[in-house]
């Protein structure tokens, strides 16, 4: 679960990381008030979306940039007005962009140096790794490619923990000395404590900056939390409701389904993430484009199948529905009954292609055929995918 910048600031602030003062606004007047309450300008106004590249992005309205520097509170209000309610398109959002419902208003200190700091899980080494670089505020992937020596890593043995001396070593590698060295080491230790205590999957500070009077400060932070660990963090689990930008995803979340909206026209419903990806892959091979990724999981019941249908059909892009179930624990006859019920109730206007395989698949197919509903079935995967692509083409 990725957090908005303003949420990340709130969490890191609790751990005592130095962050320029500011707050989040949902109305332009509020943005101005926040700026008026800050001790000094200039101010920065940042559109709150869950995607990077905001600075170089543009709004559908034509307004350029999701990050603006302002000298006066009145200017803050003006910029906030241009952003709020708009849709921001960046290199990472895709052409559909993301709606901007909140802006962050904060003090914009004078920056003399930009650094990079992150903590994440290294899957290969099976432990967390603290990453630092003197090259911050830029595309860190490029730094990693072009000058790998500029990226410094400390892997943390979970049994030993991360000690301040390691933080000082990293800070020194990041080119810090004098009073900035212990300051930054303290910041890294706090970030690591946050990472562990909150079960983060990613904590990235870019840039980490040296500002006026040789102080270190968090200028932008990207935080991902481990969804599997939310059960032990009720205080951050509430962020969940705020971070879902896509309405369909919110619906799916409520139904306990794993859904990611995409831009194609074939609505997919599959059990298992690997099979769901393979299904998308094969649709592609035959010239189709999935409208979504939807994994109903290994133990989905009739009720979830019905809800999944509802979500697929509510998507105006969808021109055909492809149900692909390999029955293991999940019996195909149960799935077939769920499909029949869902189709009977919701009377979809697009063709439906179903492939059932595995446990009780014969019985499942029989139920579909006996229902008399306009459901197309297929036995093998290639056949099913071709039928789904053809069905979507029909209704175009």
């Amino acid at each position, binding site marked *: 679960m990725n957090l908005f910048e303003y949420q990340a600031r709130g969490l890191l602030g609790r751990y005592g990381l130095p962050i320029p003062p500011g707050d989040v606004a949902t109305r332009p007047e509020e943005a101005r008030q926040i700026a008026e309450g800050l001790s000094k300008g200039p101010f920065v106004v940042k559109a709150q979306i869950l995607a990077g590249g905001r600075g170089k992005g543009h709004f559908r309205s034509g307004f350029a940039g999701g990050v603006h520097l302002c000298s006066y509170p009145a200017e803050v209000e003006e910029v906030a007005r241009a952003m709020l309610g708009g849709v921001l398109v960046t290199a990472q959002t895709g052409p559909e962009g993301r709606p901007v419902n909140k802006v962050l208003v904060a003090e914009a200190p004078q920056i003399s140096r930009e650094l990079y700091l992150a903590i994440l899980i290294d899957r290969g080494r099976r432990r967390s790794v603290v990453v630092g670089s003197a090259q911050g505020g830029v595309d860190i992937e490029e730094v990693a490619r072009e000058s790998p020596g500029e990226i410094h890593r400390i892997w943390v043995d979970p049994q030993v923990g991360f000690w301040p001396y390691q933080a000082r070593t990293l800070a020194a590698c990041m080119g810090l000395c004098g009073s900035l060295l212990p300051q930054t080491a303290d910041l890294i230790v706090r970030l690591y404590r946050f990472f562990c205590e909150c079960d983060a999957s*990613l904590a990235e500070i870019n840039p980490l900056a040296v500002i006026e009077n040789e102080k270190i400060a968090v200028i932008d932070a990207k935080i991902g939390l481990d969804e599997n660990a939310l059960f032990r963090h009720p205080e951050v689990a509430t962020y969940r409701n705020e971070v879902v930008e896509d309405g369909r995803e919110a619906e799916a979340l409520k139904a306990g389904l794993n859904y990611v909206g995409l831009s194609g026209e074939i609505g997919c419903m599959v059990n298992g*993430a690997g099979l769901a990806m*393979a299904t998308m*892959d094969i649709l592609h091979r035959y010239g189709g484009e999935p409208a979504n990724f939807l994994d109903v999981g290994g133990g989905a019941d009739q009720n979830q199948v019905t809800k999944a249908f509802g979500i697929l059909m509510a998507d105006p892009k969808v021109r055909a529905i492809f149900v692909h179930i390999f029955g293991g624990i999940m019996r195909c006859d149960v799935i077939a009954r769920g499909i029949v019920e869902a189709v009977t109730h919701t009377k979809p206007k697009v063709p439906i292609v179903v492939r059932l395989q595995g446990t009780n698949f014969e019985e499942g197919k029989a139920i579909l055929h006996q229902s008399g509903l306009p459901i197309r079935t297929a036995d093998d995967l290639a056949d099913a995918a071709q039928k789904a692509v053809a069905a979507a083409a029909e209704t175009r």
Partner: protein
Amino acid sequence: MSILVDDSTRVVVQGITGRAGSFHARACLDYGTRIVAGVTPGRGGQKLDERVPIFDSVAEAKQATGCNASLIFVPASGAADAILEAAASDIDLIVCITEGIPTLDMVRVRRCLEDKKTRLIGPNCPGVITPGQCKIGIMPGYIHQPGPVGIVSRSGTLTYEAVWQLSQRGIGQSSCVGIGGDPVHGLGLQEVVEMFDRDPATKAILVIGEIGGCEEQDAATFWKTSSRKPTAAFLAGATAPAGRRMGHAGAVITGAAGTVEAKIAAFDKVGISVILSPAEIGEAISKVMAAAVS
């Protein structure tokens, strides 16, 4: 012959009185697996279906039944503890089905297992099966048949599809191992491939990978330096969107290794044929086996 499990494997089911635990314990028993004990703290002394004795701890279960493998259905919040409990009793093989275990729990678990000989499969996996002998997991047993192909997979239902395609063509499996989809898990692709390589009953290997991580590349490194059996691979997620990842930190550690393209390139380098359509898995295995014979 097979890897990891066979008809002598004696299994304890941790969390046997839960809904999933009792359901799958029965399914494994029906398949012929020797489920010799169950564990649910506080339920010691009871029995499942009047046949499987239940204990308060793995230690007691092991002492009473000599179990050497564990199948875990304990809920996510207690699963790491259950794994360490089994490891503390020196259970040889732990298969953890539980999904949703926090990653940092698994980081600690893996670190603890470094000092032990216990092997872990999963979590968030379908388990392991040696057709006709022993099923420790949640896969539908009837789709499998004994034979020469060793399957190792990061996926669940996609593996069933692959097994189905093989069995439809009359190609059986030596063992099938679903290693699980979580970022930090037990046995890796490479380790299972090495086991199949050493197993005389395995004549060909099917690898089912997916986007993310770099386990496929690790396996490729192994092939580069060792003689090997006929092998085919399918990699899911070629068309998955690059994800909603926000930071760049992941790429700093693994670079582009997580993409299907990078994985295909690594396999190509060592001459492993990558299957392009998930509908052609059975056919591809037939081909590599036929090529090896000729």
